[in-house]
């Protein structure tokens, strides 16, 4: 099984290179951002916004937190493209080779999940380094809050990967794009459904204060309730694995 994980990581070689660039870029940009927010133009801009637009310090802080959140999401998003493995396998016709190996269907599928988790492991480890650096440089967000945000991002992306894998098995080779679209659609639909009130508040807000409050709620959720997303990530991974094994059992020769 280890061999298949190695093969999958080889399929993601290009992605790993891109990941390195993205990590370095994200680190540089976020460091520049926090330094500028402390000493530079962003700090001045923030002050002006408080004086002229009537924004509070918390609003500015939350805005900065969103920006930093996006910087943290970028590297994790780069490594979470499980569809690449399926595309590469499909191009090579690897399914026949894989089926002739001394591995059961369960092991072959587990290898895919372990590859994705390995990639997440790498990205989480790197992000911990980044957030340590950032938390030393800024007081906008503490290490715990950064950690919560990072964990929430990683959990969201692992939910996405788990869905992509199961849809790739369901649709078969050559339909990876549909798997990606289906996963995103399902995630957005579920997120809206679970947070219908917050989304309503966000989009139908009568005043700026209401929409800021809605944003605040999301930030707080990501920072403090990351364990909920983490729990759902584990649950989705487990369900996705069981469903994938079932699909692959019925469609033997597909993987």
């Amino acid at each position, binding site marked *: 099984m280890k061999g298949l994980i190695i093969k999958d990581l080889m399929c993601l070689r290009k992605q790993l290179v891109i990941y390195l660039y993205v990590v370095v870029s994200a680190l540089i940009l976020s460091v520049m951002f926090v330094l500028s927010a402390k000493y530079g133009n962003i700090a001045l801009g923030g002050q002006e916004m408080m004086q002229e637009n009537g924004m509070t310090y918390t609003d500015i802080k939350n805005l900065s937190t969103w920006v930093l959140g996006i910087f943290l999401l970028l590297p994790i998003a780069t490594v979470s493209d499980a569809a690449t493995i399926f595309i590469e396998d499909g191009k090579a016709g690897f399914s026949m080779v894989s089926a002739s*190996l001394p591995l059961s269907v369960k*092991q072959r599928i587990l290898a895919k999940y372990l590859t994705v988790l390995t990639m997440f492991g790498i990205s989480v480890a790197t992000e911990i380094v980044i957030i340590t650096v950032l938390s030393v440089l800024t007081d906008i967000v503490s290490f715990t809050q950064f950690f919560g945000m990072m964990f929430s991002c990683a959990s969201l992306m692992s939910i996405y990967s788990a869905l992509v894998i199961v849809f790739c098995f369901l649709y078969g080779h050559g339909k990876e794009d549909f798997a990606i679209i289906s996963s995103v659609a399902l995630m957005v639909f579920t997120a809206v459904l679970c947070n219908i009130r917050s989304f309503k508040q966000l989009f139908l807000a009568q005043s700026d204060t209401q929409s800021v409050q809605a944003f605040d709620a999301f930030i707080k959720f990501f920072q403090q309730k990351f364990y909920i997303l983490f729990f759902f990530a584990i649950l989705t991974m487990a369900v996705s694995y069981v469903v994938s094994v079932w699909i692959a059992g019925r469609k033997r*020769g597909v993987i």
Partner: protein
Amino acid sequence: MQNVIELKHVTKEYGDFKLDDVSFSVPEGSVCGFIGQNGAGKTTTIKLLLDVIGMDSGEIYLFGQNIQNNSATLREDIGVVFDEMGFHEFMTGRDINIMMKNIYKNWDENVFFEYLKRFSLPSKKRCGDFSRGMRMKLQIAVALSHHAKLLVMDEPTSGLDPIVRNEMLQIFREFVVEEDHTILLSSHITGDLEKLADEVVFINGGKIILSGNKDEILEKHGLLKCKKQELSSIDASHIVSVQPGTFGVEVLVRDRQACKRQYPDMLIEPVSLEEIMLFYVNREAR
């Protein structure tokens, strides 16, 4: 002698194709040629054998063990070669070695690199840049590097030039020198099988139409050449199929010696595997 492969009444139905009640066995230490035209059901049978796809009914035994719930372990002793390479184009011989040594318990990297050297395959070159012959050789190197006891090959020689084909047949011959080594070789190039096989299994339209020892099959069958008018005098039980010939008709007969005794004035020649296949396929088509 133990049968390494044994299929008993195996059926598999797709929408437009049915593998119907397939039964045959391959004894240990033999080379079995699995012959049939394209679409006859060779690849489907091989996929069933390897448990890549599930059968509808029947039983398959490998090394005397039922493949149900056992196939992954059994595949440890099987080397497989397909008509297409299946490895990712960016992979090099070294990459494949790293992958395989973490999959097969008995993977022997020294043997693998020796084969690469012997086949003149560069270990650092992407296999996507290999020619078809090189790709087949790479697959064979992989199949032979984990001390497999059974080689299952699906059309390994198709599309290769005669020199590379001969080279590969030589490798197969070397493989079966070991007493417990067995080969199942599917092909529609009967010439290769005539050189190599001990046993042959003919499949057509999803049904096994003939199986047994190759020499016995060649020895038994004969090509009787006669005038069209003489055809009615031949006992129908001897006839497999009839085809028009250059000066009359050609008849494939089941028992050459019996026919020679019964019809001493008629010309009865030995027949090749290809001719046997053609006559049987024509019979089925009628």
